[in-house]
């Protein structure tokens, strides 16, 4: 019997979801978000806080484009994992920001657009892809908008949020 070959991926959970990164939850997120059955997943090894390394069978890995978002939920709370390869390219012209909630409630897209447009000096329509995780938002904005110092604290709809540049963080 030919031994199965694997490719190693990194699974990342931002913000307060770092503690959710257990093998069971990773398998569930991979099954729901990437359609990967557990038999195609090899070893799962914990990395630094909020990351884990996952082996995926080579024949399935070939079909996986990365970075891949795996929005999931845990106990009714939204959570977000990201599956990536170590050599993934960064999207041209876009930057990923983390909006971390200090009191738990996350803003909607309109509120986020209004606040970020004001802080970053962009048009509200330029707020890109946004995904909600446990206690944080991950949003994409034009790279050229990041002229001020980050991290920073911003107010959205009367609540306070911490803004972080995800690329710098990683």
């Amino acid at each position, binding site marked *: 019997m030919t031994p199965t070959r694997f490719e190693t991926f990194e699974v990342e959970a931002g913000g307060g979801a770092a503690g959710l990164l257990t093998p069971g939850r990773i398998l569930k997120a991979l099954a729901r978000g990437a359609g990967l059955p557990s038999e195609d997943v090899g070893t799962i090894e914990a990395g630094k806080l909020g990351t884990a390394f996952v082996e995926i069978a080579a024949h399935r890995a070939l079909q996986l484009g990365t970075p891949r978002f795996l929005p999931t939920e845990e106990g009714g709370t939204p959570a977000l994992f990201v599956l990536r390869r170590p050599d993934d390219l960064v999207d041209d012209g876009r930057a990923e920001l983390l909006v971390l909630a200090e009191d738990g409630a*996350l803003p909607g897209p309109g509120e986020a657009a209004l606040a970020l447009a004001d802080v970053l000096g962009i048009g509200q*329509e330029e707020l*890109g892809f946004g995904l909600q995780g446990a206690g944080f938002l991950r949003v994409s904005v034009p790279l050229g908008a990041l002229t001020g110092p980050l991290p920073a604290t911003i107010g959205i709809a009367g609540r306070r949020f911490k803004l972080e540049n995800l690329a710098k963080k990683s």
Partner: protein
Amino acid sequence: MHILAAREAVERFAHELPLGTNGDRLRRLAEATRQLFDQAGAGPKTVLSAWADHNLGVLVAEALGQDTTHERGPFTDVGAVLYLGVRRRLLEALGNDPDDLACALALALGVAATLSDRDDLRLSEDITAVTKALARPGAGPKLAAAATRAVTQAGGRQRRGERGERPDRPDRPERGERGNDKRERPKGGAANAAEAAEEAEREERTEAMQKAAATLAGAVREGVERLGKRLPDHPELALDRIRLVLLSARSAEGVQRNEALSMARALLSDFDAKFGPSDAQREVTATLVQLRAKDAPASELARDALTLLELDAKERRVDPRRAVKLVRSLQRANALDAETARQIQRLVGNGEDGPWAELKAMLFEALGDEAALLTLQERALEKDPKDAQAARTLFERLLKNLRRSLPSPFPATTLDLVAQAVPLASLGRLSADDVEAVLHALREAFGVDKALGFARYKLTVARELKARDFVWKKALQLADEAKDEDALFDIARRAIQEKSAPPEARLSLARALIAKGQNLDEADDALRGLTSERGPIAAEAQQLKARIKADPRYRDARLATMIAFEDQLGIGTAKAHTLKVVFTAPAYVLTEIIDRPAPDFYEHKHLRVMVRGEDLPGSVKPTDMQKGDELKAPVRGQDAAPERDKDNLRIYWIADARLVKLALPTEALAGRLESEEAAFGIGTGRPVPLKISWDAKKKLLVARLLDAGGREFRVRPTIEPEQLTDGMEAAHVGGRGKRFTGVVERSGPSQYRVVGSVVLAAPEPAGRNAAPSGGAAGDAGDTAGDTTGDESEAVVAPSSEVA
């Protein structure tokens, strides 16, 4: 829009995205969005579903945002499909969260991307939402640019005939130009009618779209101006402003148009000074040249166009599409002389035919280089047999030769390609001689079948030529000659639907159908209207009509149709039909089954059923009924006797008199006649106006009782010859305008009689102010008023008899 529909649309989008780095990235985003929709479920709106909707907008915007000014991006087609599938959800999302302008951006880009293929008025709803979003303080230049593109796209839409083919799309076959493939042939008249209706509807929608865009352009312009103040050094915003000014010039006339064009020129000059040249700026300049072609001096236009081309040439970036736009503008303004053409030729160089073919053709034409032009177009047509532009030019050359009685300027293979690809719009101005000459040339080269094909699929389909009878005559003649029955039927049937159809088309169709012994009804219809005329055509039409009538298959076919119709209605079953009275007589009532219309050839709109007096229930008599009354009864049909019923095939009776039910109670019917007695002066003992005549067939006198309005009482009172005044003969009692007076009373149920002698009334004066005549039995005419014994009561004779 339901969340599941949006989810399906996103899934399909992810599936159809092309491969590649960007495609894969979009696919990953689409899959994450689909998962968000899965999580959000079908429950109430939450922050999660709001983010899913936001991401949906981002997906649409990312897919459509890669279009450039004149090239569609790699994801535009699949993005446009996604936009059309989810636009309602995007509108809802924008309505729920007006600050989420990603949805507005998606709508604006969606409108701009889909308008070139669709004349959908609903899209103007999207533009409205976009202009509202643009008014929000947080709107940025990206949304302004997309909104500008949407309104300029809608406002700059060209009508049919003005539209050019999109360079990135292969030429689609023009309607009606389907070559000789039988599967693709137009479906005759119905297809043409549908095509005309569709075209009219498209024109209407384009016009409505242009109006909507013109209305909304003001709001977009305000938004752009506002943003421009905030971001004065933004080059795209400055260009958007110029684009909007050009849009207003496009829809304006006279002074306003000139003012707008001058303003655009001034703004462009400011832009040049501030930002320098760019590709987008040159595109806008080319549009300005195009709009000024209508009224600007030719030399000025030529100078502007050459400057633009020189700049492009200097940077080795001459865009064939823009060059064509410029040269076409020069052509329209009569500014393309040989010298200018030569200069342009030098600037653009001698590129490959493909995208440069149209430009080269225009330049060769301006230079008068006919040989080069012909060779170029022949090459283009050989390379792409559907190249309408090349076919048009070559067809014009062919016509030029034929008009001078010269042979075709190109070989038969090219002639064949030209005949197949020539656009219908190029045929509109052909004269009868041109048609004759082209068909003759085709016939000489390929035989009668090819000429017939050209006449059938091109000439008789071209909108302008459809209205000319010589085209139909010629096509029918060729079909006869080729003995092509299908073509003959097709051409004749389509011709009949045209107002200008020659009578020969009707005759040909009828002749062919009779010869085939099929569809004799259709043959009969085709001859309708021809028999009432005079001349040889009418004579032949009458002969053909007689042949149809004499054909037993004709009667049998109609009989079969009637019986099938009876089966549909339920005639001959126990079904109680609703019968509506249309006519009453002393002995019978004529009714109609109004459920559904009878076949066309039936003499009346609805099937008529005879109800005899004895069929009516109880003491109700036919005279108790009146027009509009309803009754229910089962009906049976019976073959008509040809000797008695002339053209009737079937006659209908009440199947079972016991089952007849009247809508009104019998008491109400009986009382109805009594209530009318007073109005007619019956039983009052006073003389009432009567019209008396002699029924020569039954040998008895007929009296008709009239009221003051000239209406006749529904029952005729009996009268005997002895009751006439002395000296009057019963056989000569009647006469036009003659009136009598006499006393009438009821003699039994629904029976009346004249009592005592009747007296001849004095005739009514001929005119309202005329003096009364001396009482002679002059003919005052039916329109003149009659007088009764009571001078104050005028009686107008009825214009038609009631019974």
